[in-house]
């Protein structure tokens, strides 16, 4: 039909994607693509200079995001997107550095880096797509899997307590913490654009369906069914105490912006301390300007 009128309709998100790499690897009903759509729209609305935005991913389904966005993008090793991003940002402070990865990558194997980056308030934006499961490797239990949920490595139900990610992020030192589900597309995009403008470690958790490996094994239906669950069981509670936002199996999901505070970033704190002690001019104490 578009040929008939001679105009190819272009999805507004398309310029942000490496379209030559399509189709992507994500399953039908997966929530990751939805979050990428939100990400592209947040880039538009925040008017960031795109040449100065870098995306860093780890390994896993969400780890593939770096490969699909038409930006400087780095697909790193499993769990290590955050320390890569920390180095990248310190070396090139004018970049907006976004870490885009999954719950297993960021919180299990990368958990130590996550808490330390939050503690030091590295100026990176961490987008964590939490699908409660290891998707890429076939549905194993994650440190986010709700207790009693089935996974291939917990065939009789998970018996560990999962992390409450906003609580972990806040208590580790993140200056911006929000959680949404893949149903809350406008909220996600809004939170992302807020995070892009904010200095310091911003953490956005996005609860997203994995129809293939989490929903199906647990008889929670398909992607659409997951959307119904998110719609019915999500409660927007901005400013909620992160201690109270733990997610239980198919229980209520408290979403919202929980934390938005100011604290010197890693580089600001580093520069301030060094300037005080060493009487240095402001341009020193960081960055790679000498090589520029």
């Amino acid at each position, binding site marked *: 039909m578009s040929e008939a009128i001679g105009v190819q309709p272009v999805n507004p998100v398309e310029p942000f994607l490496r379209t030559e790499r399509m189709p992507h690897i994500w399953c039908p009903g997966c929530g990751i693509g939805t979050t990428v759509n939100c990400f592209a729209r947040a880039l538009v609305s925040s008017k960031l200079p795109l040449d100065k935005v870098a995306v860093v991913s780890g390994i896993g389904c969400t780890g593939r995001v*770096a*490969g699909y966005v038409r930006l400087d993008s780095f*697909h790193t090793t499993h769990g290590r997107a955050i320390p*890569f991003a920390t*180095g990248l940002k310190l070396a090139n402070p004018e*970049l907006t550095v976004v870490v885009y990865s999954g719950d297993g990558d960021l919180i299990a194997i990368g958990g130590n880096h996550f808490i330390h980056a939050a503690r030091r308030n590295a100026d990176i934006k961490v987008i964590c797509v939490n699908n409660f499961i290891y998707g890429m490797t076939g549905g194993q239990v994650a440190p986010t899997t709700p207790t009693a949920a089935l996974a291939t490595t917990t065939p009789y139900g998970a018996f560990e307590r999962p992390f409450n990610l906003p609580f972990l992020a806040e208590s580790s030192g993140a200056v911006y913490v929000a959680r949404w589900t893949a149903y809350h597309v406008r909220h996600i995009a809004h939170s992302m654009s807020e995070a892009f403008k904010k200095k310091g470690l911003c953490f956005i958790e996005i609860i997203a369906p994995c129809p293939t490996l989490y929903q199906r094994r647990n008889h929670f239906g398909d992607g659409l069914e997951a959307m119904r669950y998110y719609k019915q069981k999500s409660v927007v509670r901005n400013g909620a105490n992160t201690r109270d936002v733990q997610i239980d199996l198919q229980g209520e999901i408290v979403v919202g912006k929980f934390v938005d505070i100011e604290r010197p970033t890693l580089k600001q704190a580093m520069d301030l301390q060094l300037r005080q002690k*060493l009487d240095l001019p402001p341009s020193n104490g960081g960055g*790679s300007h000498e090589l520029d």
Partner: protein
Amino acid sequence: MKPKGDRVLTGTQFLDGDQACCEGALAAGANFAAGYPISPSTEIVERFASRIPAVGGVFLQMEDELAASIAIVGATWGGAKAFTVTSGPGFSLMMEHIGYASMTETPCVFVDVQRGGPSTGLPTLPGQADMMQARWGSHGDYEIIALSPNSPQECFDLAIDAFNLAEQYRTPVMFMMDESVGHMTEKVVIPPANEIKVLPRRYTRLPPVEYRPFRPSPEGIPEMVKAGEGYRFHMTGLTHDERGYPAMDWQVQDKLVRRLVGKIRDHAADIVRCEEKHTFDAEIVVVAYGITSRVALKAVEMAREEGIRAGLLRPVVVWPFPEKRIRELAGRMKSLVVVEMNYGQLFYEVERAAGGRVPTSLVSHGGGAVHEPETILAEIRRAAQ
């Protein structure tokens, strides 16, 4: 104490190997280091942390060696000249990112001040048993460049070479010190900055539409970019094509990994470097490197005093291995004696290069102390019979 703001500490200094390594890195233009404390290497980053703010750059102590070893890769793609410093147990943790740096062709330097191992081993005492780990410790196939200084002066000089080789071949370079060299203090002459050859990063001049981050030059080495310049490039540890895009097929794998291996092997003649003492008329050649080479030289000189025509071959660059030179020597030697602080690592390479043409023996030592010259001398005597 207010640190000096000079990047190059020109003059005659009295430094230990760790300090000299730090000064070499600074002289080479290093402006980013990430590390995690571990004996006997920590003095390098302690000095860097003290020196770099006034010079212009960053040191960050990370939460572990995994973080340190990937932070330098991130910093490199942000435009920094970066390195990390560790010892055995930390080197083991860094293996994944040595592979990642190889796969993504990231120029950076890994310093390993070797101590006795395996595992926690001898934290404050020397070892030379990470040599094979430096070569192939990460999974998958790749080739590496590794240097082995035997004095504080060389810790300075060769650290500069390590950074230059990293840039020239777009590869991680292993700087294989040992505790003895790291902690011995000697005179180190640091030349004026304008006499130090520093290889700048080979950034592409191509516009973004034409640039391919993994398209090799005729020499097999792609040009660099850094983030934030409008290239919108992609990089991955997955097998990738010239655009840096993942490609899961054996043809792309073969093309990529063959090139990664080839870009070092094909230039081995340019990279390999040996020091030789008394080899011109030697019938017994001792092969040793790092601190061990200094004891070995003593043993060679003792042998010469006894009338045994002994010589020393010291690989300064250990990987790629100087197999051509060993092969030449094997053709006219009576015997080769390898001395190293392990139970046979370079020994097997020497044996392979010698190709059975001469007897090849090993004087091993588990680390924790250096060899006694008499032990080496005894083997030279035996080999001379």
